[in-house]
Structures are given as C-alpha cells and as structure tokens.
C-alpha cells in the first residue's frame, strides 16, 4: 500500500509538471505573451520593459527551469489584472467552486443512484424508459444552454431564483443542478446496468433462494456491486465538472469561482492568472484520480494494489 501510494503520487506530480510544461510551451513558444498582455498601442519600450519584468528576455530553457521550480514552490507570479500573487487570487476563489461542485455532484450522484436502482429493478418499465432517456439527455444537452434555459424559465419566467451571482442558497440551486445533470444521467445508466447484472448474478440468486428479502438484496448485494462500478464514472464526472463544467456553469451564472475567474483573466489577457487556475485544477484532478483508485481498490477485493498500476 505504501509503495503503491508513493508510485501514484510520483505519477501525479509528473502529470502536474507536464500540464505546466504544455502551458509553458504554448504560452512562450507558440504564442506571444507580451503581445497578448499589452494593449495594441503599446510601444517598443513598453514591450521591452514587460519582457524583462517577466524574464522573457532570458534563454528559453532557463525560463522553463525557473518556471517549474517556482511552480513547485506554489509561486506562479503576480496576476497582471489584480497585481498580487496569482495563486492567492485562485485560492481565494476556490471555496465557491468547491461548494458549487460539491452541491452539484451530491445532487447528481444521489439522484442518479436512486433512478438507477429503481429502473434497474424493473428493466423495460416506465421508470426505466424515463431513466434511459434522461441519461441520454444528460450527455447530449449543452450545459451552457440548459443553464440559460433554466434562467429563462425559473428566474425570468417564474421568478423563483436569481438569474446570477452569489449569496444565499437560492443562488446555488440553479448552477448546482445544471452542473449535476450530466452526473445524474451517467450515474443512473451505470447503476442501472450493474443493478441488472448484479440481480442476475449467481450469489444474488442464491441469496434470493435462501429467502433473503428483496429490499435487503437490493440494498446490500446489488447496490454494493453497482457502487463499485459507479466509482470510476463518478470520479470522471467529478473531474469533468471541475475542469470543464465549472468554467461553463460559473460563466453562465456569474458564480465567483475559479472557472469564472479563468474567463475573466482570459478577457483581461492575464495569462499568469490563467496559468495559476490551470495549475490548481491540475492538482485537484490528479488528487481525485488517486482517491478514486484507492477507493476502488478498497471496495473491490478482487483488485490488488500492485495490479492496478
């Protein structure tokens, strides 16, 4: 276990470093950071000044080295827009994103599991048909569009929720539901199909033959198997919500998290702040991956730690 964890951690560090190297290569070699950051009317002197401030006049490999070393020390430079350490800005905006993702994810997983269990118990029934359709819609409808349609109906039309911003729980409802919808769909489909598999499995049939009640079979036997099957998907969904969904949903609802910050930073050509967001999200993504792997291994005795790698 210890060695396995160490190996996974070193892989995770490698992933974060490669993400940062990709960002570095794109910003410094393909793009022209100074041109992106400066206004159009900037003079040559402005350019030279900014270049030396950012260390861009130094050899590219020296820049890369410094950049990685600084990143490891959580020093990603000062945000051009806010004029203070970019990492501080990101960490300040992180709690709203975590709140939103946690709420959306909890909604998605709970509703998904319930729908999946109910529809898996009676494949072909009307609940099941509804669940499959919902699952399909969840992965087919563009999130930014659902967000706006919800605003049209629930905020503008019915006046139930505010159109955007943050504050009380009423601000959280719509963005969390929108973020959670694809999760509902996918978790429901996975739970459903592993429910069907589990209910047909020999050990479950044996339990039925021994006279174990249906409720107990569903709750203990089938749900455990379904739970193991959905963990990987849940992990993927969480990563998708953090690295993609949050940007879109936060932008639609002006929710002051890191996704919205990334978009504001892009609008203000603040590449350093964008980099900091990518850095923090990359760390969260690899952390989730490790947690999912460990949870999977602990729940399913058939998977051994050394075999996962």
């Amino acid at each position, binding site marked *: 276990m210890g060695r396995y964890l160490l190996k996974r951690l070193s892989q995770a560090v490698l992933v974060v470093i490669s993400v940062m190297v990709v960002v570095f290569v*794109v*910003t410094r070699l393909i793009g022209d950071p100074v041109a992106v950051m400066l206004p159009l009317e900037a003079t040559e002197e402005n350019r030279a000044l900014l270049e030396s401030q950012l260390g861009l006049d130094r050899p590219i490999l020296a820049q890369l080295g410094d950049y990685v070393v600084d990143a490891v020390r959580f020093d990603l430079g000062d945000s051009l827009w806010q004029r203070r350490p970019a990492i501080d800005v990101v960490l300040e905006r992180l709690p709203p994103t975590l709140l939103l993702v946690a709420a959306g994810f909890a909604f998605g997983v709970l509703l998904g599991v319930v729908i999946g269990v109910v529809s898996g118990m009676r494949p072909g029934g009307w609940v099941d048909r509804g669940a499959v359709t919902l699952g399909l819609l969840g992965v087919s409808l*563009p*999130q930014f*569009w659902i967000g706006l349609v919800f605003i*049209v109906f629930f905020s503008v039309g019915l006046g139930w929720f505010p159109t955007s911003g943050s504050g009380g729980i009423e601000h959280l409802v719509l963005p969390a539901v929108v973020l959670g919808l694809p999760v509902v769909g996918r978790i429901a489909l996975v739970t459903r199909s592993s429910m069907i598999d589990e209910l047909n499995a020999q050990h479950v049939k044996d339990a039925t033959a021994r006279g174990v009640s249906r409720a107990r079979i569903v709750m203990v036997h089938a749900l455990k198997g379904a739970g193991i099957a959905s963990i990987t998907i849940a992990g993927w969904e969480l990563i998708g919500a953090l690295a993609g969904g949050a940007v*879109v949903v936060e932008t639609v609802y002006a929710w002051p998290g890191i996704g919205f910050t990334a978009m504001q930073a892009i609008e203000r050509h603040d590449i350093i702040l964008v980099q900091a967001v990518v850095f923090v999200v990359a760390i969260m993504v690899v952390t989730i991956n490790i947690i999912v792997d460990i949870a999977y291994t602990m729940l399913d005795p058939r998977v051994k730690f050394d075999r996962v790698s």
Partner: protein
Amino acid sequence: MSAVSSGSRSERRRWAGWLMRIVRDPTALFGVLVLALLVSAALFAPIIAPLDPNKQDLAARLLPPFYAEGGSSAHLLGTDQLGRDVLSRIVHGARISLTIPLVSVTLAGIFGTAVGLLAGYRGGKTDAFIMRIVDTLFSFPGLLLALTILAVVGPSFWTLAIVLSLRIWMVFARMTRGLVLSAREDEYVEAAELVGASPVRIMIRHIAPNLTAPLLTLAVLESAHVILSEAALSFLGLGIQPPETSWGLDVAIGRQYVFSAPWLIIFPGLAIAVAVLGINLLAGWLRVAADPQESAKRFAAAADAPSAWSG
C-alpha cells in the same frame, strides 16, 4: 460481418440488411435522419436558408418567432438584435457543427489509431512508454487547457479543430491498442504468423478488419463530444468568431437578451441538442449492431442494451 465477403451482390445485400435494421429501429432511424438533416443543411445552406445569415435589417430587430405575438412567417424563428434571421443563422451554423467534428475526429482518428497500432503491435517498452503518455494526457484538465491554448494562440477554425483533436486522439489510441492486443491473441493471426506472413500483411489483412467497426463507432460518438466542445468554446468566445456563424456563438449573443428575446437562446441551443442527441443515438445503435455479442444480448433480452448509451 465477415472480412472475406466480396462481389457486388453480397455487398449490396449486406447494405440492404443494414438499411432494414436501421429503418426498424426508431432510435437508429432518428439518428440517421438527424445526421441527414445536418449534412443537407450544411451542404445546401444558401438554398435552404430563407435569408442571408449576416444580412442586417435594423427595422426588423428582435422580432419574435412566428407563434408569438408580433411574429411573422417572414422570420419563422424571429430575428436577433441586428435584425438577422435566426432560422437562416441556424441553417448556416450546421456547417461548423459538421465540419469541425469532421476535421477534428479525422485528425484525431488517424493519429490516435497510428499510435495505438504502434503500441499494440510493438508491445514491450514502446507500448509502456506510449501508454504512459496516453494515461498522462487523460488526466489533463481538458476544457480548461483548451481554453488556455485558444486564448494564447488565438481562436480560428483551424486552431479550434486542432485543439479539439488534441483532446480526443488518446481515446482512439487506447481503443486501437486494446483491439490489436486482443486480435493478436486470435488463432488465425497466430496461424498467419506461423506461416511466415509479414507484419505489414498481418496488420492489413488480419488485424485491420477487426478495427474498422469499433473505430467507426467511436468516431461517431466522439463527433458528438466535439460538437458539444465546439459549442461550449464558441459560447465562451474562444471558438468560432464572427462573421462566421456557430450555434454556440449565437447562444452567446442571445445571452444579453435573456429577458427580452429568449428565442435567441432557445433555438440555436435546441439545434445543438438535437444534433448531439441524434449522433449519440446513432453511435449507441452502431455499437450494438456492429458487435455480435451486444447484438445477441439486445435481440435476446427484452431490456434494451443500456450500455450502448452510457457513452
């Protein structure tokens, strides 16, 4: 599907068989119809669209759709803040929604398949090295990284298509590698190796036919993802740029009129939803139909194969 079938008659019969299966299955039929609609809208946009998508008419700004009060048949789905016809913009928007996935998925498919073939066939250290890179890329924060790259490099059709293909090629590599590995275990491949067939011949003659159906299905499925990603990036302002038209871009424009002109959001978004839904349905059906095992499951059991939709 056998790889040996040749001759135009059996070929034709096979196509007829597939056609019958599509017509009989409502989900597949819906998928095919949506795809046909998309392709014809993209190809014949200037003929189908009632008006020029960029023609402004300031006298006819923000007109509601035909069913609402003040709407007219001249602008069936209403007009935007510059008096441009929403329906015409949606028809023209089909071009981007078709060409971007076509380009991205082709690029990603070719590159990913080549990498997967190399890893699967070479095995050993090559395989381990390639798969390590692929696994690393799977842990990249996809959309966020795409946004960053587009913000720095500058959004255009080609940067968008390439960035989107960079996000999905690993899926093709992983699947190809898996298929090659399992095909290599098959007895007929071992037999061919024993007889002394060259690696290239084995690859083309014996392994490649096993790849076609699953990879095509994957390509269809990934097209749906690419359409959604393009729409999201265009919505965020880092995808397709005006004066070109894209459904995601139109939703972004409509966003400023969410109180007064909701149709500017509803219809372009609906176009994305229908296109993606149709392609997903088609991909799900293809996966079941092309796989004999899944097919048997589906037609034997009363329950529809759910795995086909789990994406």
